[in-house]
């Protein structure tokens, strides 16, 4: 068990290093560097060179790469020239929006998909199954940012139930949650469609297993056999899909944050591109990629919680 985890962690470390090299190299070949972007076109070669030396940009690429890795570890990622503040603090501040947003979206997606998928699987070919299939097909096809637009049109502007955008900050927790609800729903609907499909297929398969019949022969009702016996054994594919979706959730967060003008990581990255704030882009991308990797490590842990057969696998 421990060896298995250590091996997975080592694999993820390799993935992390690969991505960091990729990101670093890409930002290396981008024309211009942070110093010239900061000073603009009117700078003299002397001031440019001085600023470069001050920012450590005159060192060889390998040294700068290692410094950057070290900075990522300590949170010291340099200074954003558009905001004039340390990138580390900026990212922490923005993560406080993006992480709750995606977390809420995952909760909503699972909250929609699990009951829908399991109900559909209880009677394959039944009415609920038809409705779930329809929801799944339609939900996968609609872009999350368009759902966001529709939610703003109908729920925020039309009905006036929830704010259409903006974020009041966490010192007002209730208002902050209200601000995150619609964007999280926009993110969650397409994800829940995919999850519904996987849940249904997985539960249908498990319901045909012998042990479900054993449970029924003990006197368990259909719903008990479904939820207590079939669902726990059907979760592995569902969790796998959740792990795969984290990439899409983060891409979706960039879009949805822009629709709802939420001050999160995605909006930060997008604004940084418009300002050519390369330090911010480089670090935001790396933090996002790290989140994807860490979530995947977490998914590996979840497998062993859900399926006792995997606990002993060395």
């Amino acid at each position, binding site marked *: 068990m421990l060896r298995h985890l250590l091996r997975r962690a080592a694999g993820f470390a390799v993935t992390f290093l690969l991505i960091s090299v990729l990101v670093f190299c890409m930002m290396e070949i981008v024309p211009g560097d942070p110093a010239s972007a900061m000073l603009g076109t009117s700078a003299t070669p002397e001031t440019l060179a001085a600023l470069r030396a001050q920012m450590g940009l005159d060192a060889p690429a390998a040294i700068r790469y290692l410094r950057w890795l070290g900075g990522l570890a300590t949170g010291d990622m340099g200074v954003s020239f558009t905001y004039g503040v340390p990138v580390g603090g900026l990212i922490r501040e923005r993560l406080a929006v993006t992480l709750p947003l995606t977390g809420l979206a995952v909760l909503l997606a699972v909250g929609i998909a699990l009951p829908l998928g399991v109900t559909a699987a209880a*009677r394959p070919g039944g009415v609920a199954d038809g409705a779930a299939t329809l929801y799944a097909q339609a939900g996968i096809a609609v872009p999350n940012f368009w759902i966001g637009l529709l939610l703003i049109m109908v729920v925020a502007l039309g009905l006036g139930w929830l704010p259409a955008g903006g974020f009041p900050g966490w010192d007002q927790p209730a208002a902050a949650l209200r601000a995150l609800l619609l964007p999280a729903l926009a993110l969650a609907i397409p994800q829940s469609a995919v999850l519904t499909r996987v849940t249904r297929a997985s539960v249908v398969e498990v319901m045909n297993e012998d042990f479900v019949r*054993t*449970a029924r022969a*003990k006197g*368990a009702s*259909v719903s008990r056999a479904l939820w207590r016996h079939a669902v726990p*054994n059907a979760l592995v594919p569902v969790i796998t899909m959740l792990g795969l979706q984290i990439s899409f959730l983060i891409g979706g967060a960039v879009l949805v944050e822009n629709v709802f003008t939420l001050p999160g990581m995605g909006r930060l990255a997008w604004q940084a591109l418009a300002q050519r704030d390369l330090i911010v882009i480089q670090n935001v991308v790396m933090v996002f990629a790290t989140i994807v990797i860490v979530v995947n490590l977490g998914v590996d842990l979840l497998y062993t919680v859900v*399926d*006792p057969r995997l606990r002993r696998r060395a």
Partner: protein
Amino acid sequence: MLAIRNLSIAFPGPAGPARVVDDVSVAVGRGESLGIVGESGSGKSMLSLATIGLLPGSARTSGEILLDGKDILRLRERELCSLRGRRIGMIFQEPMTALNPAMTAGQQIAEGIRLHRTVGRSEARAEALRLLDRVRIPDPARRIDSYPHEMSGGQRQRVGIAIALALKPDLLIADEPTTALDVTVQKEILDILDELVADLGLSLILISHDLGVIARSTDRTLVMCRGRAVEEGPTETVLRHPSAQYTRDLIAALPRRARAGLGDEARHAAGGAR
């Protein structure tokens, strides 16, 4: 106690309904054991599923299955749930797949107890431990917290027996309980089964394609072929003086040594029951 009358089971198929059980009648008295023998696909498994009310939803039935006068085919789902496990227990063929891989042996035995009796978690666990001991699982205090994948086939089938007998039902249905096991383990499982059936005074329906198993453990035998009952009577008579050609074919298909043993065992079993 159990009386099956003119039972027919059919499934809708591409070429009209397909009958898997055709007009079968048989009875099992209290404490009596009935063997059902036939090739795979002869309808014997469907018959047993019908008795516990677990036929697939697409099945169409006619006739009646009376348990102490109540027709199981006409019971509501809620009544069936209270019947299953409490009055009828069932043991399945595949010990590999018949247990929930995500629950410990103890949890699976205790589940049935807690479904039918208002007992606490710890009390149900203590009962599960006693049952594991009764089915002669080595080191039950450790095995109670084992998951199925940590046990051998024979141990899993013992857990299966413990689940089926947890509430001391009146009727036990065992559907090919030893088919998937090694020969040496088969005998142990049958010994445990025979002993418990005798101790608890259960009625038993034992389904098998193995005439040796039927001969050693049952009082009466029903021979089925393609959904029909071809012969029924005391096990000894059916096996030693078969009246139907199909039964003769079944016996003739056995290796000679097994056939010789059959007579002995049949005599032995019949003698022991009297």
